């Protein structure tokens, strides 16, 4: 089964760059790694997705090393509205007969004024 590990929480000042890493082993070879943002009492919201190396969109960058055993979400200049929980999502390479995806343990980001 895929195991994922993320820091439980992080604090950052407004305007700073924030990097959140997810460690993941036993992930499916052909699957993308996806990151989601979740605010209280809401469903997760898609941020970014990638397979290898670096991907950038209008809100974030995603760095994935060649071994794909981790991924790092980078938020360039955080604001108070970025205070949320951030999850990685990976596919399981071998789930004992079940096929599934696994969310990371989640990182609660607190942005400080």
């Amino acid at each position, binding site marked *: 089964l895929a195991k994922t590990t993320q820091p439980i929480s992080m604090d950052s000042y407004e305007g700073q760059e924030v990097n959140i890493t997810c460690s993941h082993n036993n992930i*499916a070879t*052909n*699957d*993308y790694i*996806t990151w*989601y943002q*979740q605010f209280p*009492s*809401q*469903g*997760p*919201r*898609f941020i970014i*997705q990638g397979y290898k190396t670096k991907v950038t969109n209008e809100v974030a960058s995603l760095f994935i090393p060649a071994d794909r055993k981790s991924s790092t979400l980078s938020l360039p200049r955080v604001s108070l509205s970025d205070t949320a929980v951030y*999850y990685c*999502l*990976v*596919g399981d390479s071998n*789930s*004992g007969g*079940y*096929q*599934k*995806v*696994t*969310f*990371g*343990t*989640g990182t609660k980001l607190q942005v400080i004024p």
Partner: protein
Amino acid sequence: EPEVTQTPSHQVTQMGQEVILRCVPISNHLYFYWYRQILGQKVEFLVSFYNNEISEKSEIFDDQFSVERPDGSNFTLKIRSTKLEDSAMYFCASSPLGQGMRNQPQHFGDGTRLSIL
């Protein structure tokens, strides 16, 4: 922007009763999913549904659970005989046809909070 809608927002049910959670996915999406999130824990995958059949499921999705797309717009999750440990937030999600459920963004609803008494 189109969104996934879920009803009800909060469902309270006696243990042992059947419950049906409802979702309206985004209209042109073809993959549908259910997840659950126990209070204070991470989101857990339950099941994916494509072309009117279950595509993938996790070990959580046992015989107590079933999914259905009864018409062209709704997607439902039924729990046959609820247990206390079924208390959680249940999220529905959908995605357009693409490279499989792991390789395309999923659009989530804001969930139904299920409380089992």
